């Protein structure tokens, strides 16, 4: 069992937890993820490692309540335990040797973009961090992000905070203004990563994306997370999650992610019915 040591609400449906998991903390690297099960009957879901503390033996996760499992996870409190928590999984991001980087985070993706930016910043790289949110109410980690980069460009879709723009606009302006990036790292919804890759493609800038495919085991034994990269089948859980954004077939990946949409909607409904019953009692 893996104890929840801290819980913090970042916005209406985004939560941060620190989990006691010494085995995971011992080897965790930026870009890797964990798989957890909330309880004995639960499903396995992947979440990126937001940060780790080797000495304390802890892992921080940040998640958005989008479905039955993340809602159930969000109801747990400090002191409660997760049934299963396995990792670190996936390959660590290859950040060595990067001197000037643009890190692009979209929504919850910022929770993952932020540790990447921080790692690069600590390695002495110049980091432009572009963070995009739908509106001001869902902005997370603003102070942390500011401290982890050279320049923070905060934008919202509706202009309710920061500039009204899409992350791709900002990225294009920065490139056109003469910034020479060794790499662009994009983390967020697949549609955002797709357009970041399309933005950099004409400039030939190396673009790394973090693919959040549907997973079951996370150790390479099922291929549920497979995607096409440069025409070859890759497994996001062992070959990734980082891939060359100019080679990923995003349209296919987005459609594969929607595979269980119906079942997921049903699960949320059932979950909310149960909550309602609990309140009535």
């Amino acid at each position, binding site marked *: 069992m893996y104890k929840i040591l801290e819980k913090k609400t970042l916005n209406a449906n985004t939560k941060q937890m620190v989990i006691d998991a010494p*085995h995971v903390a011992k080897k965790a690297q930026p870009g890797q993820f964990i798989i957890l099960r909330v309880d004995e009957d639960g499903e*396995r879901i992947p979440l990126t490692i937001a940060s780790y503390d080797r000495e304390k033996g802890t892992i921080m996760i940040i998640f958005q309540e989008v479905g039955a499992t993340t809602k159930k996870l969000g109801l747990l409190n400090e002191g409660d335990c997760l049934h299963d928590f396995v990792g670190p999984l996936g390959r660590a991001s290859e950040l060595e040797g990067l001197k000037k980087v643009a890190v692009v985070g979209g929504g919850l993706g910022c929770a993952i973009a932020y540790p990447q930016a921080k790692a690069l910043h600590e390695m002495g790289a110049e980091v432009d961090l572009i963070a995009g949110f739908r509106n001001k109410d869902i902005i997370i980690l603003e102070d942390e992000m500011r401290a982890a980069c050279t320049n923070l460009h905060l934008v919202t879709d509706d202009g309710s905070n920061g500039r009204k723009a899409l992350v791709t606009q900002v990225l294009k302006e920065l490139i056109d203004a003469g910034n020479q990036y060794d790499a662009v790292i994009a983390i967020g919804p697949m549609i955002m990563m797709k357009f970041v890759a399309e933005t950099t493609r004409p400039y030939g800038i190396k673009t790394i994306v973090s693919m959040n495919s549907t997973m079951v085991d996370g150790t390479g034994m099922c291929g549920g997370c497979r995607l096409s990269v440069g025409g070859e089948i890759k497994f996001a859980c062992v070959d990734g999650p980082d891939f060359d954004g100019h080679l990923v077939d995003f349209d296919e990946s987005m459609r594969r992610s929607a595979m269980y949409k119906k079942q997921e909607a049903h699960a949320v409904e059932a979950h909310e019915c149960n909550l309602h019953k609990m309140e009535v009692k």
Partner: protein
Amino acid sequence: MANMSLTKVPMPEQDPNVRNKNFEEVATGYTAEMAIEEATRCLNCKNKPCVSGCPVGVQIPEFIALVAEGKFLEAAAKIKETSALPAVCGRVCPQESQCECKCVRAIKGEAVGIGRLERFVADYAMAHDTAEIVKPEPNGHKVAVVGAGPAGLTCAGDLARKGYAVTVFEALHTAGGVLMYGIPEFRLPKAIVQKEIDNLKALGVEFVLNFVVGRSETIDDLFADGYEAIFVGSGAGLPTFMHVPGENYNGVYSANEYLTRVNLMKAYKEDAATPILRAKRVAVVGGGNVAMDAARSAKRMGAEEVYIVYRRGEAELPARLEEIHHAKEEGIVFKFLTAPVEVLGDPDTYLVTGMKCQQMELGEPDASGRRRPVPVEGSEFVLDLDAVIVAIGTSPNPLIRSTTPGLETNKRGCIVADDEHGITSKDGVFAGGDAVTGAATVILAMGAGKRAAAAMDEYVQNKNK
């Protein structure tokens, strides 16, 4: 006087049209009377050919003689001397190509039902044996086992009985390997596997779940943690895909994914948290036991039409005859000499709509000695489908070989280890089961685990002399 009946006492089974709608065990097992009757068919041969056919050398005539006398617990103890998982082996071993194919009774008529008797005895002992498992005296040495499948469980059990402090590291949240995620409930009830695992715990074996060797720690880290010898029984869990167009459409599963969702995550239950597509028309590509398991699972989850698509003929099917027979009884349709060419899907929903196939005919024998299937010109046709399950084989996962310097593997990705002792190219590292052979059988993995345990004992004792 021996019972000279030419046929085995029949195994009671659920009716095919009832069982193809539930996940309860197909074969319900012998009663005590049936077991005694079958046991008296054994001639108690002096040279015991049956024993030579058993990869772990179960003392077959001895335990069967005890069954014939009604001494079921004594029979169980006799099997346990050499086999760690009799309730499992009695159910899933291909006895027809092992112990039973060597049986003298099989020369004229059917072999003695050794597997059925082993199963009866193991089930009886589980239900009736109240004796506490005694933890062996510790010998002060610490060893690690990577992977809690049949090879690892057997190796761990044997070493624990010798007094070793054994830790088993398992990547999934449940121990058992393929016994838990692969073989379905209707062939091997999970409660039985769990009971065997609990017995190992009672022997003192420690299980560390959710621990991925190669990621959580490497083999070298484990040595640094003080383990004196390590057994790698990590299996062959990496699925092979067909590499035909359309293979990434929604509804195309590897058999590993499909069976993991069904068995380990219990997606067959209505209220399971883990989703699965409940398809009406399913094709399973492949002809092994895994293909039969996937097809029969799909049927049980409400599929109206389930096809086995196999590129060779019926005679070449690698699955057990019993499983093929069961599958047919349950309404699975076999498409022999048929090879997939392309998976078809709806461009909008991205869901599978069918599979384009090609008729084959058998040509000259290939390297494996089997006649090679050759496409018949102009024979393409389309099967209308909602799901395709790919069961054309697996290979070892690269995680351990890529993170263990000095561990030699062959071009198929299998760890190189000598068959007799499981010794690898790396000092102190032993290996066995599918990680060495590629996908094979439960009992071969157990045999390898058993031999490696003996070799590890010798290695540790020599080192500490």
